[in-house]
């Protein structure tokens, strides 16, 4: 591993080591660029992942203070935990469930496809699907995605058998074990999925792709990566010319350090990415970095989610097997006849016993709540992953009334659901209920909206600099050597779980950065 001096102004500094940052670090270092990778969390491994769900949650999750507001269910049901993502080397690719669908071509033209919808801030992507497609192919090959490139699908679990049978009764056609970045066969130096059902606690097999044990060690092997763990970026600095030139961060002892930088790539997950840009305000950029448009932190999207549980009179043992390996894709269409625009996926889901009552079930207590838990063996599960519509006032802001451990204002997340979001969730939960009814469910339980795991669009790409924060390469409209390299850059969320798109965009951005650096443009 490289050791890069704090005063070395030739380094690329990447903030965050997840799907975007970890992939970008590998791509730049293998092209010979020196990279300092700042990661706020600690480094775990397949050996250290805890298999006690409560411990694993604490081991991997970003638990620094945050506040929230708005009418979304998360503010009511999970007041202290608006979002559930990771703070560890590998970022959220350590706990993700590895579903890797592509966005549909029309989803990249959201504004054109859906038209003018009141109270939204929809835009079209500045990239056509045809341009993104080759990077999707690269990403799928890199991540060994199932049911692509001849990679076999995962076998069907009990939970998926229930989903499949129900979906077929309803006439759904696109029902399968999903495009998953989980090895169905040993590949890429990693083993195959042994159906542990512990995707969210960190895959001890390494069958699930994670930058922790794919991209990051490969970047380290180039000799060009200086990975610093427990290094929390608190501010990005710039020179008189308006170019960024350093990142200030705190180490594990709370000491303030400053790494000089040739260019800076921010990939701290959409909440922290927006917060860091806002925290970096200066006399030259009083609204925060890259924020002359006022769009930093706005248009926060999290995708429509919500659980549906079916209780049967026979066992399902839903916890046995890859957590999310099953999907119905027939509803990923734009059909306003359903009462809303945009599409949704129906995805398989199971929760371990301790987590189910905390996250998966509606608030309750007494005999009724207990009776659901008594049926745990006989319970099948699914959830929605649908497109939510961007709104200007759904946003990440700094809350100066609450400070983090470094004395800095925490992020406040404000979400007011659009009527379209609510109509979509209702439709989806209705369809899922019908699926379980069709195969003999004794009872159906609709769960809450869990803390957001897909945090998106807070520094979005836009063709018009007034509509967003970056151009089509994630390069800030305002600052040439500042890049956004995570889900913040998505122009709209679509209905696809976002990681594949984040990786595809990082691969594309790396090519661009390398070419621009070679041409001495940045």
């Amino acid at each position: 591993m490289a050791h890069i001096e704090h005063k070395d102004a030739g380094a690329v500094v990447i903030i965050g080591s997840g799907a975007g940052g970890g992939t970008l670090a590998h791509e730049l270092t293998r092209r010979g660029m020196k990279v300092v990778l700042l990661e706020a969390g600690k480094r775990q491994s397949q050996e250290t992942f805890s298999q006690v769900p409560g411990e694993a949650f604490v081991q991997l999750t970003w638990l620094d203070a945050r506040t929230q507001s708005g009418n979304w269910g998360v503010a009511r049901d999970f007041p202290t935990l608006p979002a559930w993502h990771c703070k560890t080397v590998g970022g959220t690719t350590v706990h993700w469930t590895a579903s890797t669908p592509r966005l549909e071509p029309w989803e990249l033209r959201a504004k054109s496809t859906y038209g003018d919808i009141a109270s939204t801030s929809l835009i079209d992507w500045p990239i056509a699907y045809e341009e993104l497609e080759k990077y999707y192919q690269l990403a799928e090959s890199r991540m060994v995605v199932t049911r692509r490139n001849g990679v076999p699908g995962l076998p069907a679990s009990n939970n998926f058998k229930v989903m499949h049978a129900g979906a077929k009764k309803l006439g759904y056609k696109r029902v399968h074990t999903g495009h998953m970045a989980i090895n169905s066969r040993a590949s890429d130096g990693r083993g195959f999925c042994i159906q542990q059902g512990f995707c969210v606690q960190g895959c001890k097999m390494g069958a699930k792709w994670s930058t922790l044990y794919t991209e990051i060690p490969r970047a380290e092997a180039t000799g060009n990566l200086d990975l610093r763990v427990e290094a929390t970026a608190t501010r990005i600095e710039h020179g008189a010319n308006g170019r960024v030139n350093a990142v200030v961060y705190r180490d594990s002892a709370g000491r303030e350090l400053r790494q000089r930088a040739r260019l800076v790539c921010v990939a701290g997950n959409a909440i922290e990415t927006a917060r860091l840009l806002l925290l970096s305000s200066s006399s030259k950029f009083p609204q925060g970095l890259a924020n002359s448009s006022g769009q930093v932190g706005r248009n926060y999207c999290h995708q429509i989610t919500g659980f549906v549980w079916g209780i049967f009179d026979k066992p399902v043992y839903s916890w046995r097997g890859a957590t999310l390996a099953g999907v119905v894709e027939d509803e990923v269409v734009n059909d306003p006849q359903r009462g809303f625009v945009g599409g949704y996926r129906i995805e398989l889901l199971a929760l371990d016993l301790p987590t189910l009552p905390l996250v998966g079930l509606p608030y309750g207590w007494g005999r009724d709540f207990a009776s659901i838990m008594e049926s745990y063996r006989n319970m099948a599960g699914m959830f929605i992953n649908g497109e939510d519509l961007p709104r200007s006032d759904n946003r990440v802001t700094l809350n100066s009334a609450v400070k983090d451990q470094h004395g800095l204002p925490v992020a406040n997340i404000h979400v007011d659901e659009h009527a379209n979001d609510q109509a979509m969730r209702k439709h989806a939960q209705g369809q899922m209920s019908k699926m379980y009814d069709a195969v003999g469910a004794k009872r159906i339980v609709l769960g809450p909206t869990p803390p957001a795991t897909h945090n998106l669009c807070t520094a979005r790409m836009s063709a018009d600099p007034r509509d967003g924060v970056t151009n089509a390469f994630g390069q800030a409209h305002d600052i040439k050597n500042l890049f956004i390299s995570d889900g913040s850059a998505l122009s709209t969320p679509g209905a696809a779980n976002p990681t594949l798109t984040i990786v595809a965009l990082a691969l594309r951005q790396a090519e661009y950065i390398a070419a621009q650096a070679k041409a001495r443009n940045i």
Partner: protein
Amino acid sequence: MDQPITVDRRELLKATTGLLAGLVVTGSPLALVARGRAWAVDLKTFTTPEGAALMAVARTLMPHDKLDDAAYALVIQAIDSEASKDENLRKTIKEGVGALGADFTTRKERERVELLTKVEPSGFFQTMRLKTVQVLYASPIAYAYFGYEGEAFSKGGYLLRGFNDLRWLPEVPLDDSGAMPVGG
């Protein structure tokens, strides 16, 4: 794969250290605890009557009649331990449990539900509900009771241990799934 799981004694002890330490010299730790009072010796903050009332609260919140008292005792143990380090929590719980009345433990379930419903918005109730949900379902006793098999890495996953043993619905065609990676 339908047989209930038995609690591994060592696993149980690992997860219940503190509660059962010193009690498991002979016999079944569950039996000792289930006889009542035994768990009270470990309380740092609450009196035995308070502990008993909190047990009744936990049992009313998440009533699983056949789930051993030991599982509920773990909840009380966790709250007691936290309250010993957090004066606000100690006060909240002591006042909350006091307000339920001295006879709460011996009241009928219907009456206990009524009393708890009245205080549902309170910090006491919400803390008790959250703690009960967090702790009750996380112990090996609960795993065994609810049939949850937990981590599987150490046993080779569920690949050959029942992840696809459901037979009451049609099999999924291979086109929609995938072949097993190993024989079986």
